[in-house]
């Protein structure tokens, strides 16, 4: 049981380049989330999904797009990377809400945009 996995672990982009971050979970969780973590800012929600085929905006969605074509995968895309998107990105998942449930996090992707 791998839990939540993220690829790649590290990436360096030039301004204007595009890339996709992949999150996969093997816990059959309905809900998935993408966060970014910056020094002094804490974890901020970018986008989330409450089920296959659905996505919604979080706190800081600008410059990012997401897709959830399969229940186990949640993709985060940067169409035209900017230096302000240099950050550590975390994916998380949780079971279907029915009460407040903990989120399980992946190991993170460290992205640098030059």
């Amino acid at each position, binding site marked *: 049981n791998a839990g939540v996995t993220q690829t790649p672990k590290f990436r360096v982009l030039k301004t204007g380049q595009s890339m996709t971050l992949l999150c996969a979970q093997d816990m059959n969780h309905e809900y998935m989330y993408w966060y970014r973590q910056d020094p002094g800012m*804490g*974890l901020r929600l970018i986008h*989330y999904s409450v089920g296959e085929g659905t996505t919604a905006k*979080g706190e800081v969605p600008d410059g990012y797009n997401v897709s959830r074509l399969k229940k186990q995968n949640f993709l985060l895309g940067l169409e035209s990377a900017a230096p302000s998107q240099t950050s550590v990105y975390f994916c*998380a998942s949780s079971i279907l809400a029915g*009460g*407040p449930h*903990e989120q*399980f996090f992946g190991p*993170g992707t460290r992205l640098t945009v030059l």
Partner: protein
Amino acid sequence: EDQVTQSPEALRLQEGESSSLNCSYTVSGLRGLFWYRQDPGKGPEFLFTLYSAGEEKEKERLKATLTKKESFLHITAPKPEDSATYLCAVQDGSQYGNNRLAFGKGNQVVVIP
């Protein structure tokens, strides 16, 4: 306006020196308060969920408590392996359908041997 405020931001402890971390929150209709541990270069690891004022949970040297306005994470006789950043997160009543959490900025703890 921050929903979750953690203090102190950073704390250095001698091994064996007990202390407490504070998480104050301003959400209405708290449904759950969560504590996570995060080691450098890793993702947050779940520790506890507290649901109502007066509730307490323990795990090894850690004990989490909850009041109507704040939560404390007590670290008793800490060891160097307790060095980490501790994150607090809350879920309010408006997030029932999506299980969203609002995180604080964390308490960075260093335990010196």
